[in-house]
Structure formats: C-alpha cells, structure tokens
C-alpha cells in the first residue's frame, strides 16, 4: 500500500516535470541571462515572507480596532489599508523575481501563513508605535537584502553586484519605507500630544480624523 502511495506521489511530482497527455514538454532555452546569485535570491525570498507576515500583523491590528469594545474605525481603516499595502509589496518583489527569470521552481515554499504575533494593543498610540517599530525592522531587513545583493558571489565564486536590484530596492522600497515611517511617527506624535491632556477625547477625535471626518 505504501509503495503504491509512493508511486502515486512520484507520478504526481513527475507529471509536472515531463510531458503528459495534458501538458507540453518543457523546452530548453538559454539560461545565461538568468544572473541572480544564490544568496541574493534567498534574501529576496525571505523579504517576501516578511512582507506577507507584516500584512497579517496589520490585519490583526485592523481586527483589534474594529472590535465593539475598542471602536476605532479610523485606526482600523489605517491598518487594513496598511495590510493591503504590505501584500502589494510582496507582489512587487515577486514580480521582480519573475522579471529576472526566477520562480520557475520552489514557488510553493515561498510563502507560509502564520498567525500574527501580537493581537492586543492598549491604545491607538501603542498600536502606532508598534507599527513604527515593525516598519523599522522591515527597513533594516531591506537594507540587509541590499547589502547581500551588492556583494554576493556567483556560482563560480566571483564577486557579483546586482546593480539593478540594489537600485530598485534603494530607490523604490527604501523611499516608501522612510516616507511610511515618517507618516507613522507624525501620527503618533500628534496623537500623543492630544492624549496628554485629554486622553479619551483625544483618541476619539484623532480616530475620526483618520476616517476623514470633520467633527
């Protein structure tokens, strides 16, 4: 029985690699144009997972602020939007890998869904500061991807600088990180100032501002 199962599994695995009556044989075309190095590729893959984890963490923040006992729809909207943005970051990095001839194999293992680490925040300030901390970690991770891809070694052991990816990460991703961090820091400061004198009213008003409401 076990052997039979093994054969079925083997058949299933092989059917993708070779032609069957349902698919075309894979063709061979030159591969010299695929130049991403191993270390650089795996650090980008890790970054994709990190963006996905961030998207789930923001989902948890959106869920928390949507609760009846918390009732902060503005914060919930901010974090649900942030969640979708993180998903888009993951998609952008995936598209980049595809452009460079990657992701012909090991696609399934690229993303793992894990429950969020944190699910409770004491206040809006707490959540904004937590988000800022998370973004700071993401920024640091992107810088590490840049460092890796700037001086990796190719299959022959030669030094390799992936100029284009480094430029893309530096120009597009880091810029968005810094802008996002500045935005969160500004919001946290304003809210904290409002909270100092009028703690519950301060958060209430700030939440409605986040919704775009004038009160």
């Amino acid at each position: 029985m076990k052997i039979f199962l093994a054969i079925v599994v083997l058949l299933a695995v092989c059917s993708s690699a070779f032609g069957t009556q349902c698919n075309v044989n894979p063709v061979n075309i030159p591969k010299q144009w695929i130049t991403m190095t191993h270390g650089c590729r795996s650090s980008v893959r890790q970054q994709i997972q990190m963006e996905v984890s961030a998207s789930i963490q923001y989902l948890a923040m959106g869920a928390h602020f949507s609760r009846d006992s918390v009732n902060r729809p503005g914060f919930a909207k901010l974090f649900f939007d942030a969640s979708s943005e993180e998903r888009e970051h993951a998609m952008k990095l995936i598209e980049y890998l595809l452009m460079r001839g990657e992701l012909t194999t090991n696609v399934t293992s690229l993303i793992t869904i894990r429950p969020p680490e944190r699910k409770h925040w004491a206040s809006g300030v707490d959540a904004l500061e937590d988000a800022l901390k998370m973004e700071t970690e993401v920024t640091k991770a992107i810088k590490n991807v840049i460092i890796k891809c700037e001086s990796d070694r190719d299959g022959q052991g030669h030094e390799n600088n992936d100029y284009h990816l480094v430029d893309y990460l530096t120009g597009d991703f880091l810029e968005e990180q810094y802008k996002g961090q500045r935005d969160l820091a500004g919001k946290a400061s304003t809210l904290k100032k409002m909270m100092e004198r009028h703690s519950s009213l301060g958060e209430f008003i700030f939440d409605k501002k986040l919704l775009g409401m004038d009160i």
Partner: protein
Amino acid sequence: MKAVYAIACLLALSAVSADVCYNEVSMECGRATSSLALPSCNAVYGNFGRQGNVANELQAYANLHLRRSYEYLLSAAYYNNYQTNRDGFHKLFKKLSDEAWAKTVEIIQHVTKRGGTMDFRSRSSLETEARESTLELQELESLAHALDTQKEMAERAFFIHQEATRNNHKTHDPEIAQYLEEEFIEDQAKTVRDLAGHTSDLKQFITANEGKDLSLALYLFDEYLQKVV
C-alpha cells in the same frame, strides 16, 4: 440613598430581561467609584459567539480565505515565470487571489460587527489536517485545483449557513445567513461554474485530434483566458 434607588430601579427593570446593559449602567452609575465596567454593553446578540459555533466558523472562514488568497497569488506567480509564460492563467489566479484577500478583510469586519474577536488560529470543524501539496501545476491540473478549492469555499459557506439556519435555537442566526447569501453564495456559484466550464473546454481540446492539438490548444486557451477573466 443612591444605591437604594439603583436597586429599586433594577428590580423594576429586571422584569424585562433584555435590559442588561441598561441595568448595568443604572447600577454602576449609582456607585461612588469612577470606573464603569459594563460588560453587557456590547454588540453581541442572538447566539453569535455564545453557544453555537457560528462565530468560530466565521473566523475560520476568514482564515481559509487568507490562506487561499496567498496560495492563488503563488499560482499566479508560477504562471508568470518565463517558462510557463501563460498570461491568461496568471490573470485568472491573480483575480482569485484579489477576491479572496478582499473577502478576508470583509469577514474579519463582520466578525467584529457582531461583537466577536478575530482569532487567526480558528479552524473549522470541517477542516482536516492540511496536506502539503505543490502549487506548481500544469494547466489542466491548476484549473482542477482552482475548481476544488472554490467548491470547498462555497460548501463551507453552505455549512455555516446551515449552522445559522437549522432549526436549533442554539445556533440560529438569520443575520449571518443573510450575510452569507448576499456576499458569498451567489458569486461563488458563478466562479465555480466558470471554472468548471474552463475545465470542460480544456479537456476537449486536449483529447481532440488524438492530442495533436495540445500545444496550440493550450496557447489559444491562455489567450482566451486573458480576454475573459
């Protein structure tokens, strides 16, 4: 004196059992402390989150959508690599991913709308141990996988609907039933039907002309998907 008044009010109101929040307010406001607990002043009503498992099933439904959304995203990626290079299949899976993602957020919002708390670890009572499977599938296999998973989601909606509507006072919840009908069940029927239709077409192309049409059929079908998805 205040306490006596509060108790008197409470006694007068206890005849109406539904006024629990009001009663708590009356009680607590009458006390000299500066804290209000009011545990009954929440959005929970009906059986949601109390005895039945409708609340848990709805959370598990959000988690299922979240997982599927990222799986479809990977399938979309796979069909966009230079070897597979099937733009239509890419588009089909990207759309499934976007839809599942939007639904994830919507279900979470609905859980909280009914006074619940979202638990990202919730699993459905229908769920069996998830088996490891590859998403790197060839064309017909990938359509089959999309069809199976979409049916699973549609049937899950039926299951929660059944829990919410079966003649059982412990789980009866018409609001959830109505929500599922309006936001899920109708669209799911169309998605399942479309995928089944695609599978039938592709099956015919593959077997036609003793399989000699295969590579051109796959190419043309992909072009077709780019137009219709």
